[in-house]
């Protein structure tokens, strides 16, 4: 292809005329203009020369023997295909119908006899301009097709990579229902869910400003951070802080991520929620009225670490309560008149619920009815999480089988946090990480995390902070418990919590011994009902019944020392 063809470049021109003298004149005229000429005496010859010589422009006598000009024109146009080869009829026809037939056969213009030098030059130039313009357009179109194909292919690959990083986690758990477009990653929406090592779940819904590749790129580190930290036992606030900082660092100024983090604790029947810039979440109670959870924070990726507030709102729930989270796409659904579904639409769907209707179905039906489509916008994400009994829910998959490479088997480690650090930092992920170095313990990360977090939370809340656990069991006490916890944490000083680990190999596998000591008051473990008898007790001065039972169930042995502020457990694992 002569892509850089200029208007002044010589052309190859095919002429066909059965009159020898006329052909001679035309051929000479065109040669004088600097063009190369192929000449044919009839239609058949013209078609053959066209195939062989690939001319740029064709001048064709309308009436010729062997093959009529019209027929030759049709053949030539068919053979040229997408290429525009201007075809000019040489004619002394003057009848309008005859001329129309020439155009229908594919003619682009006319040239009449007698030949006129100036006219021929002007015509050839004009049609050549048209040809070049068409060629430039075709080339650009081909280039665009190629770019588009490449873009789609890249999106496909990006999608595969993204799916590997941002798998759907535990979104298919029976207590979660959601709608997300299959290509939502390119619309800027994300939805992740992960079980926590010690039970419970974390769910994150996000909506990036912008669309396409930039949004998808931003979603990658969020997915990696979320799943990575969630499986290591970090809580929602920790993960939010990390995501905020990461996005602030990598995203351009005008890009950020609206999002909501939900931490569900099924055992204690509570939800923690953080909403930064997403539409109101809704908690739909199984019995009482619904409860709105509006955004109280700026989106992620805007504030610096010291300005960012990752504190999550704590809500007491009952089994069967359902939490609805959604992205802007839900509010922005429009009907044929261009009206938006809006908060009003959501409110109507949620408040008009019968007692048996699932809020997810109600909202989806509401949107479908409103938009009048079975399929709607791509950037619409809706997620409903139900508070259920934890039993029967998937827990973190018991990682890969223990490596044949021996990890550390004989080791000791003491980790102590002190003073104000107690109020600011959770040592659990780090301690879990240390234990996970032992291949035999890696499969048991959930149990180890549960043990450590029970020990730590007990030492902190009931030891260091001296909070009575029975407060948590009444609705009034619940709020009081957490506000008191926050107040006391802010003022804590002179205290410590010390963990001592000792792991040794056994012929059956290994034994991990953990001693947890705190600087608190301790408690009367001698008379604690759970320690006295096997039946459950709902309250105790120090360990809540559930926590202690969990420890007893998971650990080989549990012993209390001193005034009850030193607990020692042994945990065995088997090959």
């Amino acid at each position, binding site marked *: 292809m002569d892509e850089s063809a200029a208007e002044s470049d010589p052309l190859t021109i095919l002429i066909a005329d059965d*009159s*020898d*003298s006329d052909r*001679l004149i035309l051929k*000479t005229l065109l040669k004088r203009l600097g063009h190369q000429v192929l000449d044919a005496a009839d239609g058949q010859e013209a078609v053959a020369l066209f195939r062989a010589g690939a001319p740029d422009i064709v001048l064709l006598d309308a*009436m010729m023997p062997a093959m009529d000009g019209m027929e030759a024109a049709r053949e030539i146009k068919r053979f040229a295909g997408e290429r525009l080869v201007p075809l000019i009829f040489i004619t*002394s026809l003057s009848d309008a119908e005859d001329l129309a037939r020439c155009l229908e056969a594919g003619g682009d213009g006319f040239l009449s*006899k007698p030949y006129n030098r100036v006219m021929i030059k002007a015509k050839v130039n004009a049609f050549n301009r048209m040809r070049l313009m068409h060629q430039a357009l075709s080339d650009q179109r081909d280039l665009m097709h190629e770019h588009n194909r490449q873009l789609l292919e890249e999106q496909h690959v990006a999608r595969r990579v993204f799916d590997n990083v941002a798998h759907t986690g535990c979104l298919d758990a029976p207590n979660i229902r959601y709608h997300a477009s299959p290509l939502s990653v390119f619309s800027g929406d994300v939805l992740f869910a992960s079980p926590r090592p010690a039970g419970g779940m974390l769910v994150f819904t996000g909506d990036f400003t912008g669309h396409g590749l930039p949004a998808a790129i931003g979603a990658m580190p969020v997915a990696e951070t979320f799943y990575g930290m969630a499986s290591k036992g970090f809580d929602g606030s920790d993960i939010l802080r990390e995501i905020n900082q990461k996005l602030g660092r990598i995203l351009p100024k005008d890009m950020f991520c609206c999002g909501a983090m939900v931490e569900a604790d099924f055992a204690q029947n509570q939800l923690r929620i953080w909403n930064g810039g997403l539409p109101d979440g809704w908690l739909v109670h199984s019995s009482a009225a619904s409860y709105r959870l509006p955004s109280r924070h700026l989106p992620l990726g805007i504030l610096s670490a010291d300005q960012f507030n990752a504190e999550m709102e704590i809500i007491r729930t009952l089994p069967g309560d359902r939490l609805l989270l959604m992205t802007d796409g839900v509010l922005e659904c429009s009907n044929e008149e261009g009206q938006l579904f809006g908060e009003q639409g959501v409110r109507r769907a949620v408040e008009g619920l019968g007692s048996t209707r699932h809020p997810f179905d109600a909202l989806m039906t509401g949107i479908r009815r409103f938009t009048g489509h079975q399929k709607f916008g791509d950037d619409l994400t809706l997620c409903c999480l139900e508070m259920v009994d934890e039993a029967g829910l998937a827990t973190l998959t018991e990682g890969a089988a223990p490596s044949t490479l021996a990890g550390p088997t004989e080791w000791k480690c003491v980790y102590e946090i002190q003073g104000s650090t107690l109020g600011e930092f959770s040592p659990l992920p780090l301690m879990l990480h240390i234990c996970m170095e032992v291949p035999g313990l890696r499969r048991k990360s959930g149990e180890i995390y549960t043990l450590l977090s029970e020990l730590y939370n007990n030492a902190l809340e009931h030891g260091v902070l001296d909070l009575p656990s029975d407060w948590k069991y009444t609705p009034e006490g619940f709020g009081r418990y957490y506000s008191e916890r926050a107040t006391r944490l802010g003022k804590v000083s002179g205290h410590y919590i010390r963990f001592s680990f000792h792991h040794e190999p056994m012929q059956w596998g290994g034994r991990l011994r953990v001693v947890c000591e705190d600087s608190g008051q301790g408690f009367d473990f001698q008379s604690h009902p759970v320690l006295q008898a096997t039946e459950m007790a709902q309250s105790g001065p120090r360990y809540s019944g559930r926590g202690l039972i969990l420890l007893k169930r998971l650990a080989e042995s549990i012993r209390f020392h001193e005034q009850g502020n030193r607990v020692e457990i042994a945990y065995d694992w088997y090959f």
Partner: protein
Amino acid sequence: MVDKPHLDEEALAELQDVMENEFPILIQTYLNDSKERIESLKAAMNVGDADAFARTAHSFKGSCINIGAPHLGELCKEAETAGKNERLSDVSPVLQAIEEEFQQVTDALKELMIRGTG
């Protein structure tokens, strides 16, 4: 009704300019072509093929106009019209006129060539 000149001097001058050395070849080609066409017209008339008659007259007309023989072109047009209207019965006079005019054009062109080369 036919009042055009035998030769269009201006058109011929331009052709001479364009064709340069090949001008005599062009004239010779035209004359040979035309003779053939007159024979074709006669043959078509004799077998009563009105369509062939009209087509030949049409082509003949085109080359006459191009070469600068407008009067002959005009006569060809008359013949073409008669052929199109399937009036071959009364084309004999036109054909006669075409032959006479062609003789005139031939003489004039030959004279022009002699002048041109002289």
